[in-house]
C-alpha cells in the first residue's frame, strides 16, 4: 500500500502546501514573532480576508488574487486600528497584558467569526478562476494548478516581506523595535508608531493570504480555528520573527501533514499541526531559528 511513488507524491504536494502555510503565517510571524502581541485573532482575520475576496469575486467577478490586492489597503487600516486599540488598552497602561490580552484577542476572533456568519451564513464558500480545478500531469503525478499558484505567490510574498524587513528603513526599524524598544526611544524614535505600522503590515499581507486560502480550498466561518494550530505551529517552530524560518517550518508542517494524510487518512490531519506545536513548545521553545534565549 505504501510505495516510494506515494511518498514522492506526498513530499511534492507537502512542499507546495507548506509554502501556502508560510503565506498564511507571515502576518503572525510579524505580529506575534516580532511584536510579541498575543494575536490569537490572526486566523480569524485571515478568514475574514477570504470572505472579502469571496465577496469581490462573487459580486464583480474579479480574479481572487486581484481581489486580495484590492482589500490589502483596507486590511492595513484595519490593522492600524486594531493595534491602536490594543495599545491604548493594554501596553500603554503598562499592565501585564497576559491573561487579558489573550482574552481580548479571543473575544475579537469570536466577534469576527459571528459577523461573518451573520453576513454570509455558515455554508462553505469558494471562488471561481480559470486556474481552479485544473491539474498538471507529470508522469503519474497529478499536481493541481491552484497549488502551484499558491506556491508561486506564497514564495514571492515571503521573499518580498523578508527583503522589506532587511533592506528598507521601516523594515529595519521594525526589527529594531523587536530587539530593544527602550533603545529606540532613546534614539528619538517613537516605538509605538513603528509597532503600529508593523501590525498594519502584518494585517495587510492577509489580503493575498486570504485569497490563497480560498483558492486552495473552500472556506467556512469556523475555518480560523483549525488555522490557530497551523499558523502558531509555523511561527513558533520557525523561531519568533524569522522569515526564512517561517518558510522552512511551514514546509516541514506541510510535508508532515500530507504524509500523515496519505498513511492514516484525513481524519487525523487536524491534530498534526497541534501535536508538532506541542512538541516544539515542550522540547525546543526557541524554535529552529530562534532569535533569543
Amino acid at each position, binding site marked *: 500500500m505504501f510505495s516510494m511513488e506515494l511518498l514522492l507524491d506526498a513530499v511534492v504536494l507537502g512542499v507546495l502546501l507548506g509554502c501556502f502555510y508560510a503565506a498564511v503565517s507571515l502576518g503572525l510571524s510579524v505580529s*506575534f514573532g516580532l511584536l510579541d502581541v*498575543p494575536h*490569537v485573532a490572526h486566523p480569524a482575520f485571515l478568514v475574514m480576508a477570504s470572505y472579502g475576496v469571496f465577496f469581490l469575486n462573487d459580486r464583480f467577478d474579479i480574479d481572487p488574487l486581484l481581489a486580495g490586492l484590492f482589500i490589502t489597503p483596507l486590511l492595513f487600516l484595519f490593522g492600524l486600528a486594531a493595534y491602536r486599540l490594543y495599545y491604548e*488598552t493594554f501596553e500603554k497602561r503598562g*499592565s501585564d497584558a*497576559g*491573561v*487579558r*490580552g*489573550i*482574552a*481580548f484577542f*479571543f*473575544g*475579537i*476572533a*469570536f*466577534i469576527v*467569526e*459571528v*459577523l461573518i*456568519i*451573520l453576513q454570509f451564513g455558515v455554508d462553505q464558500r469558494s471562488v471561481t478562476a480559470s486556474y481552479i480545478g485544473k491539474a498538471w500531469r507529470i508522469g503519474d503525478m497529478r499536481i493541481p494548478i491552484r497549488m502551484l499558484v499558491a506556491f508561486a505567490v506564497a514564495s514571492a510574498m515571503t521573499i518580498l516581506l523578508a527583503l522589506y524587513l532587511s533592506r528598507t528603513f521601516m523594515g529595519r526599524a521594525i526589527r529594531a523595535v523587536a530587539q530593544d524598544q527602550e533603545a529606540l526611544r532613546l534614539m528619538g524614535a517613537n516605538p509605538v508608531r513603528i509597532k503600529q505600522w508593523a501590525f498594519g503590515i502584518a494585517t495587510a499581507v492577509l489580503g493575498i493570504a486570504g485569497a490563497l486560502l480560498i483558492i486552495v480550498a473552500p472556506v467556512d466561518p469556523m475555518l480560523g*480555528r483549525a488555522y*490557530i*494550530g497551523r499558523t*502558531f505551529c509555523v511561527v*513558533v517552530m520557525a523561531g519568533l520573527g524569522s522569515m526564512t524560518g517561517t518558510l522552512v517550518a511551514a514546509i516541514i508542517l506541510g510535508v508532515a501533514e500530507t504524509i500523515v494524510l496519505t498513511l492514516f487518512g484525513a*481524519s*487525523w490531519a*487536524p*491534530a498534526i499541526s*497541534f*501535536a508538532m*506545536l*506541542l512538541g516544539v*513548545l*515542550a522540547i525546543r*521553545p526557541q524554535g529552529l531559528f530562534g532569535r533569543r534565549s
Partner: protein
Amino acid sequence: MSRASIRFWIGATVFLVAIALMTQVIDNEYPFFAGYVILQFIVLAVAWSILGGYAGYVNFGTSAFFGLGVYTAVFLSKATGAPLAVQIAAAAIVGALLGFAVGLVTLRMQGIYFSIATIALTIIIETTVTNWRFVGGAAGIQMQRPPVMPPFHSYVQMLFFVQALLVVLAVTIARYTQISWMGRGLQALKDDELAAECTGVPTLRLKVLACVISGALMCAAGAPAAMYLQYADPSSAFNLNYSVSVLAMSLIGGTAHWVGPVLGAILLGTTQQLLAVTISSEANVLVLGVMLVLFVVAAPEGLIGLIRRIGRNRAGGRT
C-alpha cells in the same frame, strides 16, 4: 470554625435544600433543562479560575477536560453500564490525570504559550476521540438514559440536582484553595513567578496541583452531559465555545475571589440561555465576544472589582 466558614456552610446548605425543593415542587421540565446548563457553567468557571484566576495561567483547554469527561461517561456506560455516580467519579480521576499531564508538559510555558499548548491538547484529544470507533467516532453516539431514581420525577431533574452537588463541591474546593497556603502561593506565583520561586514558594508543585484540581472538577462537570443530551459527538463535546465561555465568565465575574466566576457564570449563562431561546445561537456567540472584550477593556477586575470600587467610593463619600 471561623464566622465566615459558618456562613459559607449555611449558604451551601440553603442552596442545596432550595434546589432539592425545586425538584419536588416544579413540574415543568424547562427550568431544570436551562438551569442545568447554568450550574454546569458555574462548576466549569469556578474550576477554571483555580488555575486561570489564582495562578494567572489562561487555560484554553476547558473543552478538552469537559469533552474528556463526556467521553469517560460514554465509554463507561457503553462498556460496563456503570451508574452515573461512578461515571462522574471516574471522570474526575481521568481529569486529574490529564491535569497532571498538562502540568508536566507545560511546566515551563508561560503566557500565551501555555494557552496555545492547551488549545493544542484539546484538538489532539478531539481528533483521537473522532477516530475511536467504539465511542461513535465522528458521527457521535446515542445514549440511553437509565430509569430515574426516586425521589426525582424525571432524569433531567436528577441531573440538575447532581450538578448542584458538583457546584457545592467545586466552590468548597475553590474557597479552600483560595484561603489556604495554596491560594497565597498561587497568588505569589501570579504576581512574579521568579520572585516567588526565589522566596521558597514551590511554584512548579503548586502549578501542577492547581492543574490537577481544576482538571478533575472540569472533567467531573462534563460527565453528566452525555446523559443530559442523550447524545455525544466529538465536535460539540470538544467545542472551543466551552473554553471561551468559561474564560469569559471568569473574567467577567472577576478572578480574585471564588464568588467572581459564580457571578459571571450566572450572568452570562442566563443571558446565553435567554438569547438562544429568543434570538439565535449566533447572537449568543456575538454577545459572548462583545462582553468578553468590553469587560477585559473596561473592567479589568470584573464584576467583583466594580462592586468593590462602588463600595470604596461610598465609604470614601462618608468619611
